[in-house]
């Protein structure tokens, strides 16, 4: 390696390290602050001490956070809602896209165009009609048929399962798959579902990872207005609504940081799980350009 190349590389790494710091520092700040009493937290925040575990360090904030709100329950709710939505979304969006791309049926271009068009509607415009709708839908459970979905898990799951974006991403990806593969599977005798399961999905890792990540972020981090509208029961609330518990009367910054640290753990676990697929997906979309 020549000197010039060494210098260039170190420059590059320095730059990348700087970028990484910009992303990591807020998390460091969050974790460190969660260990400090409110007063020290506020005074430290004006210096580099904000990023260091110094002064009066302890886990009091965590204890207080757990006693103020049913943190475990909120996390369970969010994880459950997110996981269910994610799996249903991956399945339904991909199978819908499969039909749009590989199966001939009358009017599919129009239907796809309508679906894609719905993407421009912001959630706020449909929130109220959606509320009226879910309030009148039937549900079948062990108690028989009940009407109205308010205060339930399904009201937080079903409306979010599919949005145009997921279908669109799968459609785009499937269109780039070689058609011959699907056709030769047909000639070989595979049913549409067998083609979906044994040929198309095994080749769709990058788009599955992409959709999974987008859906995870949407469901785990961003469910706030809708749950407030449709869920009054504390036992069904997700994490973001739980955050409100810490803003009553005087804001408990230390506890908020502790709460945020706890609810970040599932995000990290999810990322680690998907990391390889995520990088592959970024790389492949990069190549496709």
């Amino acid at each position, binding site marked *: 390696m020549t000197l010039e190349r060494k210098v260039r590389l170190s420059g590059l790494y320095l730059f990348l390290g700087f970028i990484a710091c910009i992303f990591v520092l807020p998390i460091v700040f969050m974790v460190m602050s969660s260990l400090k009493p409110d007063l020290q937290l506020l005074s430290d925040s004006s210096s580099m001490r904000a990023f260091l575990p110094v002064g009066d360090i302890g886990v009091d904030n965590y204890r207080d956070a757990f006693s103020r709100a049913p943190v475990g329950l909120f996390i369970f709710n969010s994880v459950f809602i997110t996981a269910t939505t994610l799996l249903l979304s991956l399945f339904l969006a991909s199978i819908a896209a499969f039909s749009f791309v590989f199966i*001939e049926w009358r009017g599919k271009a129009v239907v796809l165009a309508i679906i894609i068009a719905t993407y421009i509607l912001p959630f706020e415009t449909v929130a109220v009609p959606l509320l009226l709708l879910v309030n009148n839908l039937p549900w079948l459970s062990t108690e028989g048929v009940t009407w109205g979905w308010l205060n339930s898990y399904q009201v937080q799951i079903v409306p979010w399962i599919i949005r145009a974006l997921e279908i669109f991403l799968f459609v785009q990806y499937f269109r780039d798959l*070689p058609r*011959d*593969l699907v*056709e*030769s*599977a*047909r*000639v*070989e*005798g*595979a049913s549409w579902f*067998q083609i979906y399961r*044994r*040929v198309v999905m*095994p*080749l769709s890792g990058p788009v599955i990872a992409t959709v999974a990540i987008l859906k995870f972020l949407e469901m785990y981090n961003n469910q706030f207005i809708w749950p407030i509208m449709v869920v009054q029961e504390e036992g069904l609330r997700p994490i973001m609504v739980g955050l409100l518990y810490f803003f009553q009367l005087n804001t408990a910054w230390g506890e908020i940081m502790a709460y945020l640290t706890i609810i970040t753990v599932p995000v990290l676990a999810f990322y680690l799980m998907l990391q390889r697929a995520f990088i592959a997906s970024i790389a492949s979309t990069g190549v496709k350009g």
Partner: protein
Amino acid sequence: MAGIQLSNLRKQFGTVEVIRGVDIDIRDGEFVVFVGPSGCGKSTLLRLIAGLEDITSGEIRIDGRVVNDLEPKERGIAMVFQSYAIFPHMTVRENIAFGLTIRRENRKAVEQKVAEAARMLQMENLLDRRPSQLSGGQRQRVAIGRAIVRDPSVFLFDEPLSNLDAALRMSTRQEIAALHSQLKTTMIYVTHDQVEAMTLADKIVVLRDGEVMQAGEPMHLYHQPANLFVAGFLGAPSMNFISVTVAAVDASTVRISAPAIDGFAVEKSGHGFTAGQQATLGIRPQQLRLAPKGTGPLNGRVVLTERLGSETIVDVRLNSSDIIVAALPEDTILHPGDAVSLGFDRAHAHLFEETL
């Protein structure tokens, strides 16, 4: 095994008709080659037979049964694609076994059939590889293996050799011919390469713009082309065409004249020709001979010679300024600018009613 009948088959994409009333009769066990220039509808015709496209009108029968509305898997066919279309996420073994496992065949039987196909195609040692670890020719053989294990009644090949290099193309062509003589299954093979068509086919179907120009045994098409298109398409170098005028007609000969040539008679039955009409004379380059100076009907100067080893291809500009190509013996020594006289056996000249 099965014969195939196509009757008045038509296919439209939107308003464009790409298959325009095709009738073809394929006997059980026959090796049929569809040949024609790019875009003439060969692949479309094959895909109609496979059931990958719906037909617009007409009828397809396989083994006597109308299959118009049947799914590909119900037609008893196997297909080898130009791109091979083997599954990149499966091993060679899984690829070959795909059709069998889909049908949930007994595992023992599947293993045995895969082993048999692998032996036949000499790829036993490749079974656990992934397609990305194979060469083009090996991928091709995986695709063929996947087709033969299912023991279909008809094989369809869409330009299976076009992605291979010249040497591999020749050896794979021979393997496919051997495969046919071994399996004796009906095969339909699409190509735009007339050499593949001539060497492989029991029957050639020449297509142009979605219509059958002529169908028949290779040598029949070569010796008795029904029209200018077939005459020009089969054989290399292409047949020479010269515009002529019919001067006189009698029972067995037609006397013709043209600026390029001295008037003479060709032995063609006079039916269909009338004196005074325009026609086209066709002569294969291989039929042309050097004649002593000034004695042949065709006189001109050499513009280009290509020595191929087995023969020498000579382009001659006739005095009428038409260019004519002659395939002469390999020891012919000619240089650009040399004056030559060419003659030919009149029994082997072709006379077409069409004009250029």
